[in-house]
């Protein structure tokens, strides 16, 4: 049996964070109720599940993200988990992740998730400074985050925490304090995301109006480097630009993306890479429901990935991984040596000291890590 990755999108939240541009609706203001949405998602699960089974695939990793999946009522959540079990050909020891926010974590929720087979919980902590949390539009406090974490720790073999850097008013010293506290809790996995001001978000408007002051580039770089050094010292392996894990706890689901292997995304606006084609589901709730009610997949945008694009994608995704892109894997997949295919690019990037290679891998150098976009862009032709 071949193993693949499946993502389920739950586009609901309690409130919209000021920096967020993901596809999600505030639960109470949404044009579509969670009940109706789950109805559609169930139909999509049935269609995709049957497809996987007949093609001989099993689901090695399942990731329920959003939005905030745990914003669903207990009954809704139970229904969703049951459907996953009923329709998807889950592998024997799948990695099953659910995303959550601290305010949505209750004993009932964690018990339900754990009992259903969820074995990895990803908690959006972001920061431990209450003033900054409020400034980002987060609804929880540092104390609530700690309580949520402690509760999760008892129910899941792996807990992953999301933290943010480059926040307005944040300094490197403050970031290190936060990391020290978080490391003492002992989560298996940590993501350290630099804040990106996305167009059209509330944050972008605040920055535009001068109400919010972002740290300068030197400070942002210092946070990235100091954070990395600190987490490594605490035993976390830096395995992807923004991701750290204790040995054995890397996120298998996300590794699928970075290794440019196929995956299915289900739900509103979800992305799939399947049979050499990239798909985006419709982003419109009504279309989503209507198509599924008619027994059709709610696909909207399709991009056929040429072998050239697949090679480029393999580079720009694979170089996010700290160990880099494997020459052997590349050769096995494309029948060509990547050192030949990207000869010019590699030469000029090496000259700039942004990449390095050994016998087996091509990777970002220490200098190239914070300048990864410059490197990736070179591999696009």
């Amino acid at each position, binding site marked *: 049996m071949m193993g693949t990755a499946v993502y389920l999108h739950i586009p609901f939240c309690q409130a919209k964070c000021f920096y967020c541009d993901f596809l999600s609706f505030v639960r109470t203001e949404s044009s579509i109720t969670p009940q109706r949405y789950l109805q559609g998602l169930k139909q999509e699960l049935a269609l995709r599940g049957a497809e996987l089974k007949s093609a001989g695939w099993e689901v090695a990793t399942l990731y329920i993200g959003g939005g905030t999946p745990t914003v669903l009522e207990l009954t809704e959540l139970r229904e969703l988990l049951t459907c996953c079990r009923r329709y998807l050909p889950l592998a024997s020891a799948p990695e099953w992740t659910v995303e959550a926010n601290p305010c949505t974590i209750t004993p009932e929720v964690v018990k339900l998730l754990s009992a259903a087979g969820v074995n990895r919980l990803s908690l959006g902590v972001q920061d431990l400074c209450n003033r900054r949390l409020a400034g980002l539009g987060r609804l929880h406090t540092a104390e609530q985050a700690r309580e949520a974490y402690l509760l999760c720790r008892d129910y899941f073999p792996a807990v992953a925490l999301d933290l943010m850097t480059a926040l307005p008013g944040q300094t490197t010293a403050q970031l290190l304090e936060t990391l020290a506290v978080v490391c003492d809790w002992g989560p298996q996995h940590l993501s350290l995301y630099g804040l990106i001001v996305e167009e059209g978000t509330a944050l972008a408007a605040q920055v535009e109006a001068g109400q919010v002051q972002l740290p300068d580039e030197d400070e942002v770089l210092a946070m990235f480097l100091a954070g990395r050094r600190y987490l490594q010292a605490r035993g976390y392996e830096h395995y992807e630009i923004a991701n750290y894990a204790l040995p054995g706890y890397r996120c298998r689901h996300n590794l699928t993306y970075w290794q440019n292997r196929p995956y299915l995304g289900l739900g509103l606006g979800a992305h799939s890479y399947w049979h050499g084609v990239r798909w985006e589901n419709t982003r419109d709730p009504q279309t989503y429901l209507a198509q599924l009610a008619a027994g059709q997949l709610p696909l909207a945008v399709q991009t056929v990935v040429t072998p050239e694009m697949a090679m480029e994608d393999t580079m720009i995704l694979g170089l996010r991984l700290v160990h880099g892109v494997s020459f052997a894997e590349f050769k096995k997949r494309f029948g060509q040596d990547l050192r030949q295919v990207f000869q010019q690019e590699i030469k000029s990037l090496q000259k*700039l000291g942004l990449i390095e290679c050994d016998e087996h891998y091509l990777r970002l150098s220490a200098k190239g890590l914070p300048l990864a976009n410059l490197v990736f862009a070179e591999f696009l032709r």
Partner: protein
Amino acid sequence: MQQKNIRNFSIIAHIDHGKSTLADRLLEVTGALTQREMSAQVLDQLDLERERGITIKLQAVRLKYQAQDGQEYTLNLIDTPGHVDFTYEVSRSLAACEGALLVIDAAQGIEAQTLANVYLALEHNLEIIPVINKIDLPSADVEKVKRELEEVIGLPGEEAVLTSAKEGLGITEVLEAVVQKVPAPVGEREAPLRALIFDSHYDTYRGAIAYVRIMEGQLRPRMKIKMMSSNKVYEVSEVGIFTPGMTPTAGLAAGEVGYVVAGVKNVKDTRVGDTITDADRPAADPLPGYQRANPMVYCGFYPVDSNDYEDLRDALDKLNLNDAALTFEPETSEALGFGFRCGFLGLLHMEIIQERLEREHQLSLITTAPNVVYRVTLKNGRELEIDNPTRMPKAAETAAIAEPFVSARVITPNDYVGAVMEICQDKRGIFVNMEYLDTTRVSLTYEMPLSEIIFDFFDLLKSRTRGYASFDYELIGYRESELVKVDILINGEVVDALSFIAHLERAAQRGRELAGKLRQLIPRQMFDVPIQAAIGQKIIARETIKAMRKNVLDKCYGGDITRKRKLLEKQKAGKKRLKQVGSVEIPQEAFMAVLSID
């Protein structure tokens, strides 16, 4: 056609006063084209001309007109380009005429180019028929324009024809005025042939086609003709007239306007202003006034991608087929690699060629800042013409440098006189004269270096007078100036393509400003990049571009690789417009930045 029933005339006007629209109306009313055949402004044939609303290549057309006196007349309308760059072409087309329609916007009144054109027409003893156009505009003030005509130009305002070319008003009156006032051509049909070339164009199948006005004699197919400037001889394969398409005829005789095809391979051999004569019975003297159109402004064109060099050469060759005034020769820049030094009649000419190369030939170009031709006298007595700042000899070897000066006329509402004078003085202008055209408008004359005009003079004038001032100039000769070369060093190396010549007193300031401008234009690199300006060995300015520290997308975007790709492609597209100079990537605009410093 009898000579007494021929009228040869041009239309002259300041830009946007309605010349092309009037020409279109004349074609329509005389039935040269039905309305269905007319896309607006037929005579402006290049796309660029239509877009910019200007005439670059002049055109000619023969109109048949049944006048009110019952006779049929042949009216040859010769359109003229409306820009100072092409003054010589205007002058040649006027020399092919006996009369000119002087079109003036009823709302704007007389402008700088109106005057420049009137003086040209007077030099050729043309009968000038004033036409006050756009009388339909609410802001039209016909009486004021009539007063200006009388007071400024000395033409009887009462005789002006009132039109609205847009609304089709007064068009017949214009045609009647042409018939009644423009003299019929004179010229012996039996005399040896003398035909004035007033334009030419290149046809892929038939070679260079000369547009001619027969001053004396006759031109027929199978005749042997001779170009009097070069003595080259050709056999005529076809002659004809413009209706406005080319229509062959049995011949052309004195007084007529038409075209001649004679197997000429290159427009350089049908030079505007040259005289065609009969090779077997040549005229004693050519027609007066021929001069080669010499480039006034030079710049370097370099392909962004050095692989496009041959394509650039081919494209320049093609444009040159139709444009003898364009000159180009290969040059090498240490910074930009292989390219061409190109000469132009003026800035507009340069912009047009640049735009056509990019648009019609899909070339991505780096254009270096334009400069004039300097005349340098060395201490050893030798004299040099320098068309590229990089080649300016060392100060220690130079005895004197002279630069071209122009006489510039600015017409402005009197509210802006102070601002205009300030700009002119700032641009090293020498005040010559100030004249009130009426109670509200002033004509200012300054002598100033051409190099200052090709800087940002026109833009400054437009912005400081809110577009109300008009401007024209003519070359008056070379004068000595205290000039120095300013070099720009990026990352410690001189970037030759950024060197410029400036007046000694302003060199330091311009160097500082350019260095500051470059700091903003050049994207951050992976290391600190110093930018310096220097005169000789002396550093006069220094700026630093700080290194890029961090550029990474942390976020995973939930498997949305397409979005990530788009972000990276956008970043990459920005980089494509950069030129690698040494280890620094410099954007195309940087090479023109010297023009936008004040």
